[in-house]
């Protein structure tokens, strides 16, 4: 029974994704707009929602399906993934674990707004009160009467079987947490009265679009209330909510999520360094390095609301004692010994080779193999991440032997070894545009520590990007700062994150406007986010192939049967 149930849920989830895509994809609509998308919650979004709805002390106790990066962003890949049967088992386990904690002795008084007449018997009134409240937050819209009835009935039936009201309630909540309506952010579309023949997201889908973009979490109660009142389809109402959300401390959560995605920091989960070669690069150092760069970026774009491009040049950062050892600067603890490392602001002096996130340990270590640095990998990463350019993969039959041999043909430095590629036509084309970028970072070894020599030979850190020559990493940062592609890149990626898909050709004009406004603002990221959040384009969708009203939420089909199987197990 259990297996059948899980497979059933997974299939329904898959159908939901496919169904929505089929229903809303259209190309003959006169308004330029892309398709609606259905996104699977990312691991971070799942965590954020549980924390927002139930509190920070709820343990998830499960694993997430791996995310997929498409066009540079996991946020775009999220609209192209489904859930495997094994993944569904994990969601089911997490849902049950979360639900059990929500109703346990430690939490029920705070999280369940009512008390049953008897803890051993069903109480539909109380169950309804609780399930309607959390259901609205988890589903990002009020439950339909049919949905609510199904969950209340399931809770009552489970209570009857288990003889425990709270157990019954938790099983019903567990079903909600493994429902496709929770796990997938569906976009429900409706005819757009302002553009005849056009379509737009419905009120609650607008709320989710905004919330996942700005906060990387589900809408809060105020935003859902605004959706219920129809405010989000008025310019004034939308502005009021956007301003409120932009002023919230949770904006940092959304900005952080963007940069973690954009900088590919999810790859830290699989980052490994040869401890014999890079003994300072501990797991703690890796975690701190990741956080250092995020803190640096947040300081530029949020705390100081400075020019976004400063992330490539700023000397201001934050360090822990663990990182201080790698940067070879004194970062002293402030608290008692044995206390966790504390972050401290630090500014590299003008003559220091560090400046900008490209010179930080996170970037140089992440874009290096386990045992050495790599101008090629780093150069490619700069092009792809900072400039949003695509570098083709190497030919299938390429041999890396020469490069991996540190002293082949007497070549001591990576620059000398890579010179060999210049003689191979199939390699030269790409290496010509990526290696000179990476050479600027050669003063940082495979774990990001400063060095002046490689195999005893002095390092030449000069390089070039798009015709701009520089002498060192500082010059590279400045060149990226001045490169127009860096501006287009963040505009494209930020809008893709907001849409949950790559912007379409028809949306280029919108992107051009965004870029112009971004430049006008002095490249202030919050201004760009506000502009996107207030754009019609974020809420318009192409014409669906079938009427949206014919589709049904997939939840009801499974809820009653599935919850009862859980209750009796």
């Amino acid at each position, binding site marked *: 029974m259990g297996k059948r149930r899980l497979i059933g849920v997974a299939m329904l989830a898959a159908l939901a994704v496919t169904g929505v895509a089929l229903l809303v994809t259209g190309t003959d609509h006169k308004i330029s707009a892309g398709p609606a998308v259905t996104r699977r919650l990312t691991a971070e979004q799942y965590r954020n929602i549980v924390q927002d709805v139930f509190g920070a002390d709820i343990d998830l106790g499960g694993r997430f399906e791996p995310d997929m990066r498409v066009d540079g962003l996991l946020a775009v890949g999220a609209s192209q993934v489904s859930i495997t049967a094994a993944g569904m088992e994990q969601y089911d386990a997490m849902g049950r674990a979360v639900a059990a904690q929500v109703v346990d002795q430690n939490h029920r008084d705070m999280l369940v707004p009512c008390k049953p007449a008897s803890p051993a018997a069903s109480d539909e009134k109380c169950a309804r009160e609780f399930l309607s409240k959390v259901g609205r937050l988890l589903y990002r819209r009020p439950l339909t009467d049919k949905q609510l009835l199904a969950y209340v009935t399931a809770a009552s039936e489970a209570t009857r079987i288990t003889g425990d009201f709270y157990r019954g309630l938790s099983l019903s909540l567990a079903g909600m947490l493994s429902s496709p309506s929770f796990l997938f952010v569906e976009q429900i579309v409706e005819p757009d009265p302002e553009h005849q023949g056009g379509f737009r997201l419905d009120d609650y889908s607008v709320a989710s679009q905004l919330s996942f973009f700005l906060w990387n979490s589900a809408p809060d109660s105020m935003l859902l209330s605004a959706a219920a009142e129809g405010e989000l389809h008025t310019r004034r109402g939308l502005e009021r909510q956007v301003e409120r959300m932009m002023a919230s401390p949770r904006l940092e959560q959304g900005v952080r999520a963007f940069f973690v995605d954009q900088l590919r920091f999810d790859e830290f989960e699989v980052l490994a360094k040869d401890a014999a070669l890079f003994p300072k690069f*501990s797991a703690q150092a890796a975690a701190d390095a990741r956080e250092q760069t995020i803190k640096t970026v947040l300081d530029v774009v949020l705390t100081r609301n400075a020019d976004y491009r400063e992330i490539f040049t700023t000397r201001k950062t934050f360090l822990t*004692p663990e990182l*201080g*050892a790698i940067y*070879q*600067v*004194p*970062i002293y603890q402030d608290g*008692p*010994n044995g206390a966790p490392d504390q972050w401290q602001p630090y500014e590299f002096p003008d003559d220091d080779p560090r400046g900008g996130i490209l010179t930080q340990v996170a970037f140089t270590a992440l874009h290096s193999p386990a045992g050495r640095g790599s101008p090629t990998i780093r150069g490619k990463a700069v092009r792809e991440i900072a400039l949003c350019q695509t570098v083709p993969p190497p030919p299938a039959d390429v041999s890396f032997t020469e490069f991996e041999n540190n002293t082949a043909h007497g070549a001591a430095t990576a620059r000398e070894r890579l010179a060999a590629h210049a003689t191979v036509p199939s390699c030269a084309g790409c290496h010509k545009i990526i290696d000179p970028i990476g050479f600027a970072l050669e003063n940082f070894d495979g774990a990001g520590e400063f060095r002046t020599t490689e195999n005893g030979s002095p390092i030449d850190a000069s390089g070039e990007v798009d015709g701009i020559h520089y002498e060192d990493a500082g010059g590279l940062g400045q060149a990226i700062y001045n490169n127009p592609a860096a501006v287009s890149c963040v505009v494209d990626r930020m809008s893709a994150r907001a849409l949950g898909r790559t912007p379409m050709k028809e949306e280029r004009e919108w992107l051009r406007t965004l870029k112009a406004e971004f430049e006008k603002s002095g490249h202030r990221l919050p201004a760009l986010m506000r502009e996107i959040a207030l754009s019609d384009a974020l809420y318009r969708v192409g014409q669906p192939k079938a009427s949206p009203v014919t589709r049904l939420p997939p939840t009801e089909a499974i809820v009653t049967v599935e919850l009862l199987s859980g209750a009796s197990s």
Partner: protein
Amino acid sequence: MIARSLIRAALALSVAGLSLTDAGAETRHFAISWFAQATYSNDHDCSRGVHPEVEEIYLRYAAKLGATPQQIAEWRKKIMDGDEARDFYNLIMNRGRIDGKPVNPYTHPAAVVDLKMPGLDGKEGFGFDLDGKGPDQPGSFQDPETRQRGVDHNLYRALGCTRAFRGSLESRPTYWAWAWGQLKDSQPAWLITIEGADLNKDGPVSVAIDRAYEYLRSNSDGSPRLDMAYRVDPDPRSRNRFEGELRNGVVTITEHGKLRLLQNPLVSPEFKLSNVHLRLELKPDRTARGFIAGYTPWRPIYWGIAGVGFGGEQQVTGDVPGFYYLLKRYADADPDPITGQNESISATYYIEAVPAFVKPAESESQQVSRR
């Protein structure tokens, strides 16, 4: 980068208002990353042989305590076969005798019979001529590195033929490897600060040996981390200053005072030396290594060893009460005015240290250590 670090460190000192030897003073800080008795074990230093395995010593105790040859033979066979010999081990675990009654031998070592195990009689050992009696003093060593004669290092004489204390600078003695392994992760780091006008030239220097607030930080492979930042604990019980000199890249102390550092009571509550001698080589790779020596009270050394108890005696140290008698016998300084028993023993310790950033105790924002 190194130069910049040094400049930053010097600036920090200046800001803190510390008196430097002159305006152009240079300071180097180190965190001690290895600290253990300096041993130089070889094939010719124990003419009566290295002490036997602990089980064999146990059998000797058993004989002294009245076991018959037949019992000894049976126990030996059981030990060899790995069979249980509970009565034997009960006897050994309580091999002390006070008024004829069994007592714990580790807390009452003087109540255990003295097996009179031999000390080391080799010619070479690390250290200094602490008592100044010159090269021909009987029982003294010749230092294998400096070739200095008249070296006083009776701690090595006392323990050098016991298995757990044999080793070299490269192949470290079991006990000290265990002890430092425990200490470095359970007590704040020990710091060395060398200050002089120009540490690339010969000249006078000052040497500070302090305790930090922070523990020694290790790398992911267990090696000590370079360039970590530590704060000096202002507790006067661990503040030590010496005048010295730098010659050919080696720092020595010219005023041989006293050293005191708080330590983890697991090994010993305090580490103390009198008549301190130091030889510390500043290496081109920015690390340092060398030797510190002096007279140290021998009883705390015993209690540190005794703390391992019966399990540790079997697994790490070997015969614990035997150390009591060896240390007592070889103690060579600070005679008790009443009994005449020497209470201190000459000792040399080997030090390795890694470069570190150190915030002086006089700086602002110091807080009291929590543990």
